[in-house]
């Protein structure tokens, strides 16, 4: 029995989890049904477990807030952490399919809540396959922002149907987004960037934002600066491809 010094998975100074204990493969098969619990319908989702500050056990003071921002494939949670302080009254959630990475984000949020009392209560993470279960978590028109940052490119043509942005899946994202809600996508893979932009452009329920609108939106610059992937791309001097669209009522 080797006597190792207790390797805690949390950094002693910041109280935040150390990434190297949460290493995971970048890819996860979105088609396989890993067995994680999913709510049967949105009202079954346990808000008190994720946002105890807003939904204490005693239901008298329970808020009637609903999640409004969803980061699909939130990775290590960089964007969520930045958004949390920018929009302190908005509930937001990260959805991640990789087990270890979800655990990391959970620990990160708990650590931040502990070291910053009163803050980061509006953000949480859930391990799920958002390509199959978006309607289980969100009611029609519930979300006002959805993020798809640096998704898996699935290069082979036969795997294109596994891409998280596709003409069919956009139907479901349009369902979950309120009219006027914004969908933000970003990637460092040019072909994927064109694909995502093409899907959004062709979809009757989305319209592109104008340059002025993009400049005015404080979230836009976070897309590449706040996410771990975005920072990596910047370090390597790579280019990012962005497509930001608004959910509209389709013209009949």
């Amino acid at each position: 029995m080797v006597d190792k010094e207790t390797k805690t998975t949390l950094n002693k100074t910041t109280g935040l989890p150390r990434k190297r204990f949460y290493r995971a493969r970048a890819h996860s098969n979105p088609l396989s049904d890993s067995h994680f619990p999913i709510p049967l319908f949105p009202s079954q989702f346990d808000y008190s477990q994720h946002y105890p500050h807003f939904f204490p056990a005693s239901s008298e003071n329970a808020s009637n807030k609903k999640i409004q921002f969803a980061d699909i494939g939130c990775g290590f949670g960089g964007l969520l952490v930045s958004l949390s302080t920018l929009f302190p009254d908005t509930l937001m959630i990260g959805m991640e399919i990789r087990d270890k990475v979800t655990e990391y984000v959970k620990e990160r949020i708990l650590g931040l809540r502990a070291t910053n009392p009163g803050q980061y209560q509006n953000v949480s993470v859930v391990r799920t396959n958002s390509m199959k279960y978006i309607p289980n978590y969100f009611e029609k028109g519930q979300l006002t922002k959805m993020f798809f940052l640096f998704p898996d490119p699935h290069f082979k043509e036969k795997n294109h149907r596994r891409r998280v942005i596709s003409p069919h899946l956009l139907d479901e994202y349009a369902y979950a987004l309120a009219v006027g809600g914004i969908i933000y996508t970003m990637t460092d893979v040019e072909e994927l960037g064109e694909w995502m932009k093409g899907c959004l452009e062709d979809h009757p329920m989305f319209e592109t934002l104008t340059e002025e609108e993009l400049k005015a939106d404080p979230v836009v610059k976070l897309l590449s600066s706040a996410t771990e992937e975005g920072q990596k791309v910047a370090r390597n001097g790579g280019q990012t491809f962005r497509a930001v669209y608004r959910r509209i009522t389709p013209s009949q």
Partner: protein
Amino acid sequence: MAEAADTPMEEGGESTKELEVAPALIAVNPSQQSVVVAVGSDLRVYDLREGCAASLVDESDKSFHKDSIRAIRYGVNGKLLVSAGDDKLVKIWSTDSWHCIGTVSCEKRVSAAAISNDGHYVCFADKFGVVWVVNLEEKDGTFSLVNEKAAPMLSHYCSIITSLEFSPSGCYIVSADRDYKIRVTVMPKRPLNGAHEIHCFCLGHSEFVSCLDFISSPDFQEGYLVSGSGDSTAGLIDSIEREEEQFCAVTDLCVVPNSTLIAVAIQSFKGIVLLSCNVSAKSVSFTKVVSITGETFSPTCLGMSSSEDLLWMVMGISKLPGLDCSSLVRVRAMSGFKRISEGEPIMLEDNEMPGGQKLLEKLQGSVSIEESVYVAASEALKKAMSKLLIKKHYSVENRETRKRTRNDKKFKQ
């Protein structure tokens, strides 16, 4: 491995084609002018109007079905019949001439099909969960296929769709899948460009959804959606709230036209359960359980016309392991729904059925069936329906082994 999980029909390196059995299906023309039964790759039609078996004519390159038929539906106007299945073909038939007016090829096996109320569109779902649509045009009462190439309309991401229904008004198309979901989508003016607007999801089932139907109501043009599931419930959907009754897995259900009665067929149950819906109170209750005595007949597929007071039922399977030659098809009918308050519906004897012995001969292939065959069929049916509706789960070790022996290469057609 991902492909295998999506397409359980092709699972296993060993060819399971010989063991592929298909439950028999039945469909009734809305004005009861004909009844069709599909068992395996065989499509059998009895024309009640002419009083004889119908001969189907198919002059296309890929004539008739070569593999198990998985869906047969009549259009509401009664002029069209669609058949589709494991041979990846969707065939559209004219019910006047019994000619195949068009064949559409699909990349994957087809699991469900439906014809739009006006007969202008045929929709079908493949094993990837994509619902495709083809356009028909009507000239002087006859229909023809505009283009054999189908366009993708909507999709249930990687779920196998078990049922497709158009709402009574034609405004919506409802699709149900094995992953417990029901999606109601707005039918657009140009379906070939895709049906992107989701009206709502009906969630709440905790098992596969096996069947859908609509209760029509003069007060509410859209009708009321009714669903049946493997979670042993069948009932009214009201987006989120569900009213239901509990029993074993529901294999099929059928709304009795011009009423709020639902006839429900349950796995291995020798009879029909009748539910009554109170649409204003949004409640569902048991009305009657009609048991079938005599032979071991547990229906797996139901059909009713919109005019006659007759519920058609079929129990059948395409192959009986052991007896490996023949298939079994047994067709029966139940009547008496109009006067449900006065008494139980009754099973018709063979000679009391419309079409009588001639119909049974055509649809069943034979007139008398031995009890032992029924019992064997019951068992085989249970397995077949399970395979169709329940997603097979592999243990982690099993998955790793399966990953090593990939089998998702395209087979020669």
